């Protein structure tokens, strides 16, 4: 069996979260690879939208940024951002959004703004982009991030993208649509329980429960029927390496 990288596993696992009739707001990097993998396997009709305003993109090669011309050429439609965010995202026309983040808490609230104090930050991160809107307005958000205590603290320094805020009921009260669906890391896959709290569903091969607990900043819950994450198949690995990212821009290097 072919050896795979953590990133390849995360791509393959994220692809499984997508259904054939989903419309997804795609980010560059791992989400883009996951969406394109899903499109070439079980979800050929997946509709890909980018926050730059390209609707139904059909990229002929891996886009280098969310504003790559390859996303506009041959797209279904291209619209101004007022429309992409207003008529598509805010209007509830996007099922799935992908988010990353420097910090993620137990309710799936994400920080991609600052580490430390907002007005005098230790690290100034890029900020929201469309993440706050994606988190607020899609039906399901899929969070992808490396697993570490630093990334999964008890509390985030700034809520860039609201998850369940203070719990599932709280999000609903605030009038926010949907919510976080899954968190996929290099160690495990988490879903959210009835209260909206993150719960480990499956652990990747060669990772232990203790590893995950150790790499999480709070006393994380484990599902009673904890699984091992299914590794990427030969087909998935071949597609990623030969067609989706032949130059290893996103998938090389962590092997």
């Amino acid at each position, binding site marked *: 069996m072919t050896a795979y990288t953590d990133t390849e596993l995360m791509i393959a696992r994220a692809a499984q979260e997508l259904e054939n009739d989903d419309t997804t707001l795609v980010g*560059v*990097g791992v989400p883009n690879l996951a969406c394109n993998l899903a499109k070439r396997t079980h979800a050929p009709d997946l509709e890909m939208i980018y*926050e*730059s*305003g*390209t609707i139904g993109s059909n990229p002929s090669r891996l*886009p*280098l*940024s*969310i*504003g*790559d*011309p390859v*996303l*506009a*050429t041959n797209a279904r439609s*291209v619209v*101004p*951002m*007022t429309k992409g*965010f*207003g008529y598509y*995202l*805010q209007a509830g026309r996007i099922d799935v959004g992908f988010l990353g983040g420097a910090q993620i808490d137990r309710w799936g*609230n994400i920080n991609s*703004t600052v580490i430390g104090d*907002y*007005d005098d*930050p*230790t*690290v*100034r*991160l*890029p*900020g*929201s*982009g*469309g*993440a*706050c*809107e994606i988190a*607020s*307005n899609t039906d399901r958000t899929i969070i992808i991030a490396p697993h570490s205590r630093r990334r999964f603290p008890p509390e985030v320094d*700034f*809520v*860039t*993208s*609201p998850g369940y*805020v203070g719990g599932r009921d*709280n*999000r609903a009260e*605030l*009038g*926010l649509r949907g919510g976080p669906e899954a968190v996929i890391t290099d160690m495990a896959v988490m879903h959210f329980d009835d209260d909206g709290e993150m719960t480990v569903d499956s652990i990747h091969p060669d990772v232990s429960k203790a590893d995950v607990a150790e790499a999480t900043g709070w006393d994380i819950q484990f599902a009673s029927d904890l699984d091992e994450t299914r590794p990427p198949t030969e087909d998935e690995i071949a597609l990623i390496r030969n067609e989706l990212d032949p130059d290893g821009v996103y998938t090389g290097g962590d092997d």
Partner: protein
Amino acid sequence: MDDAIARSIEDGQSVYLGGFTHLIPFAAGHEIIRQGYQDLTLIRATPDLIYDQMIAAGCASAVTFSYAGNPGVGSLRAFRRAIEDGVPNELSIDEYSHFGLVSRLEAGAKDLPFVPLRSYVGSGYPDHNDSIRMVANPYDDDVDEIAVVPPLRPDVAVVRAQRADDEGNAHLWGITGEMVEAAFAADTVVLSVEELVDRDVIRSDPNRTAIPGTIVDHVVEEPYGSHPSYAQGYYDRDNVAYLEWDEISETHESTTEWLSEWVHGVDGRREYVAKLETERLLDLQPRTNFSTPIDMGEY
């Protein structure tokens, strides 16, 4: 371009250089650096390399933005140096998410006191940005209250388009981002294009004229004015330049060295383009791919 910039911008003004990843007016940004502007408030959803360069050059004292990264590469190092360490000067920020920033420009374009949007509820923004406020919904349906943002009206907007006529009626295609809203929101508009074309070309397809000449104050023809970003149908993004910037901008010294050579060291975009290797430019050319025309009818 030097003349258009000199006549449009004054120190201390708020300036928007347009384009979401696409059609970024790098030539105008470099001209602003060359003319030594200071104390500008820079407005852009994505500051991108161009604002990183202007910040490093000391042109800016404030940035209004929603994503400060090197798109597809990493972080903006000069931007971070200014915020984290005050190098070369302190930089104040006014920060939104994309839709918030775009909505502010839309409110400016429509002259509305505010625009509502379904963002910010449950987020940390309202605690740190007093411009984001809540308004009660006067109807029984739906939420009790919703976030609103006030209008943003740049003193000057510099926008690029693929083609325009001499009146500044511009055809844009591909990703237009928030450019049109910003042009309508701004007091003064500088339009820079890949090529000036006959008025008949523009008038043959009025639905594509997103920026009318009536809101444009200066029109400049400047081929490759968006390099190293791109112009759909004309040239691709020069990704090597974006990757290299990550190294160039690693220290303030290496950044200013680059500015000396590529900005101060040339007298305008023509010299900048001449300085690029021919092969590098040729590699950016896409194959031709024309749209099927429409029939407007002769009425």
